[in-house]
């Protein structure tokens, strides 16, 4: 079977690639484009470690076919910092020690950014439910939730400080 030719936009750059019809967006990102920041924890949409934005929607890259991407736009963790300036969420995750092993972190950051873009002032409960699709086995979620709430506050221009 001939491979599918796809022309798409990844992190703002025009990208072309060839993929098998059954290869996922995650396969394409990691294996074809060498963007390994999106992780595969399950391959079935249950862990969220491959969270990316597809046309402005938060999705699991493991549940999107590479072949679907023609004319679409994908944003990954690799595009979250603005040059050398970290996104407030990235910074707050470091300040709050909101990661231990760090393998779920890229997916959680992408998901958290999608939340704050949509809801700049989420409650703790809203953060927890929004991130329910992002499994973390190390932290118990406490510091993750605090970091997201703190970043939201800072992005709203409120004075906050890490504990």
């Amino acid at each position: 079977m001939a491979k599918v030719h796809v022309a798409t936009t990844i992190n703002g750059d025009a990208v072309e690639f060839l993929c098998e019809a059954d290869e996922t967006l995650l396969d394409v990102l990691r294996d074809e484009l060498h963007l390994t920041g999106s992780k595969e924890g399950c391959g079935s949409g249950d862990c969220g470690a491959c969270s990316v934005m597809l046309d402005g929607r938060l999705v699991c890259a493991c549940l999107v076919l590479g072949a679907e991407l023609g004319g679409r736009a994908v944003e990954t963790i690799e595009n979250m910092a603005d040059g050398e300036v970290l996104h407030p969420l990235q910074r707050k995750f470091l300040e709050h020690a909101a990661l231990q092993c760090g393998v779920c972190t890229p997916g959680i950051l992408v998901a958290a950014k999608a939340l704050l873009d949509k809801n700049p002032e989420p409650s703790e409960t809203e953060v927890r439910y929004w991130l329910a699709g992002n499994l973390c086995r190390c932290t118990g979620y406490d510091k993750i939730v605090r970091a997201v709430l703190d970043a939201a506050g800072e992005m709203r221009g409120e004075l906050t400080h890490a504990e």
Partner: protein
Amino acid sequence: MPNDVKTGSLAPDKKLKWVGTRPLRPDGVDKVTGRAKFGADFSLPGMLIGKVLRSPHPHARIKSIDTSKAEVLPGVKAVVTRDDFHDMESEFVPAGEMLVNYRDMVRNVMAREKVLYDGHAVAAVAATSNAVAKRALKLIEVDYEPLPHVIDVLEAMEPDAPLLHEDMITAGVEPAPDKPSNVAKVVEFAIGDVEAGFAQAEVIVERTFQTKPVHQAYIEPHACVASVSEDGQAELWCTTQGHYVVRGHCARLLGMDVSKIRVTASEIGGGFGGKTVVYLEPLALALSAKACRPVKMVMSRDEVFRASGPTSGAHMRIKVGATKDGRITAAEADLKYQAGAFQGSPVQPGAMCAFAPYDLENVKVVGYDVVTNRPKVAAYRAPGAPISEYAVECVIDELARKLGLDPIDFRLANAAKEGTRAAYGPKFGPIGLVETLQEAKAHPHYTAPLGPDQGRGVASGFWFNIGGETCAALNINEDGTAALMIGTPDIGGSRASLCMMAAEELGIDLDRIRPIIADTSSLGYTFLTGGSRVTFASGMATIDAAQDAVRQLCERAAKIWEIPSDAVEWEDGYAKPAGANAGDFEPMSLAEVAKVAGKTGGPIVGHAQINAQGAGPSFGTHIVDVEVDRETGRVTVVRYTVVQDAGKAVHPAYVEGQYQGGAVQGIGWALNEEYIYGEDGRLENPGFLDYRIPVASDVPMIDTVIVEVPNPRHPYGVRGVGETPIVPPMAAITNALADALGIRFTELPMSPPKVLEAIGEAAAGG
């Protein structure tokens, strides 16, 4: 302020600049930008993809394996089976908290005579693509003779149970049984006279408990890339808690010299003990050697659940007696742990820990290590302890209530303290159980009002912690910065805490020290990240290496000043003339000494190679509030507080993280996590959909109190903290449910159907 640090009286007299603060971790930016390279993130030119064919049977004899069709499939470059691995003699080798046996290990990585569980590896292929490798697996013909299987631990102990190993004679029994069985070993720890102790008891509680196997469920699946050259030199990149251990295992399994295998640990996406053994690594090396090309292997989540180690499920009987004034007179436990397909369950540490929190005169614990047709268990966070201590802490709680005593007071009346002889042998040095109980009792959580259908429970927990063989090197760079090389993979922020200790000793700023996890050929043998040993043991090695560097720095300054080296002292990053020479010379900074090192004797490198002794045990006490939906059986954890002794919290934020993460893993173990097998002996829930680890919306904030009773054997008082937090939650939640419902649950997980059924039975007067 939910998170408190309570410093004990033995705090070091030295003023600390870095230790005890919360700086950013040195590997942090890589991990928030996606740059950090985990196990599956490595690639090499010409790399092949390796995949494993796994048994669909829980138990079957392998009559034949025909790989001929797979071998001729275009794109297939190598196939390996049992024929590619030499058999090994039975030999138990200590591996930290567990023992390994190479005869079993070679059979676990690739089935030999039989397959022993659903998911057992039978063959592996390396091909030019994932798709070709998958097609090749389908072309391998395995002729199985299915055999009866046994999944449950009690059934496996029945005389007529299907035998996994026809030659297994129970060890630890006198006289040795004349017939084989699935019981690999019986262990016993006893002090005093339990019969006499129970005779003195005025109240006795005896119950049986069951737990299910639960998986470490790290988010990153096992992964590696192996590259073996034509002359047999091997490079291996893998996600592991111990790359030196991986090197040793692979060398043994493949008959290679240790020097020929260089292992580099990738960033590791969680392990919790599950990445202390080898699965894919020897297969990838064998495939690469055969294909003469690099081979990458990554497990799917399904493979992780089916073929890598969960911890044991167990069946336990616990009996504890006490006098009316609350003194425990005797304690007894029978522990039957299932080991999976090969012997080596953590029943021994489970037996040792069972009553460790208590100062008891009469104790008897008997443990059974039982094989079943399940994946071989691997270490999981305080291996064995959460199981036995769960059962004991439930009985302790019930006994306290029967005696009309506050459960914390009852524990305090019987708590182990400095000088207590533990049932498993040693006398405790300074330990912090009493302090954690006192802090828990004083915590506002303990007396906060409860809502309707809510209950509160407490439980304590213990874990030994370990030290062990450890190296560190500290290169002082020519500009006064430093590179710290350590051999323990950083699983949760240890590079930060180790650099903090180095900065403290050198007296330079933290950001001037760059840490790396050295590969196995760059630094001496270092035991794995496990046993809560990294901040303790790699910390001691780091401190030693830094002090070695400081000695050299002082010598160089002495040389420049032409005074004896013992007349130079190191203070806040400066060499200063001391004693008779005090004030004679301008102090020299580390950077100034380093700059001229070439002229004063060459590079300055601090080294340490130690076998760290004196890991202080860590005790914790947890408080939990639950709320029960009486109509659906749903249990919600509404408030949680962890109090634990850290000795000294080097980086308190990462200590809190260990407490919080352990508590939430324990919540999962208590309420929803379990391996579910069908009648056919196949695992029914090998995925995160139905193996239900807690999600963010399942849990509340986890409050923490760090108690600091310094460990006298560590320069800063450090104890390991990573494992103890998973010990108390299951009992604490069970005890909270008893408080809420008046029902004593004796089986994990306490999933909604079980809770609703128990509520129904209680209502019916059952």
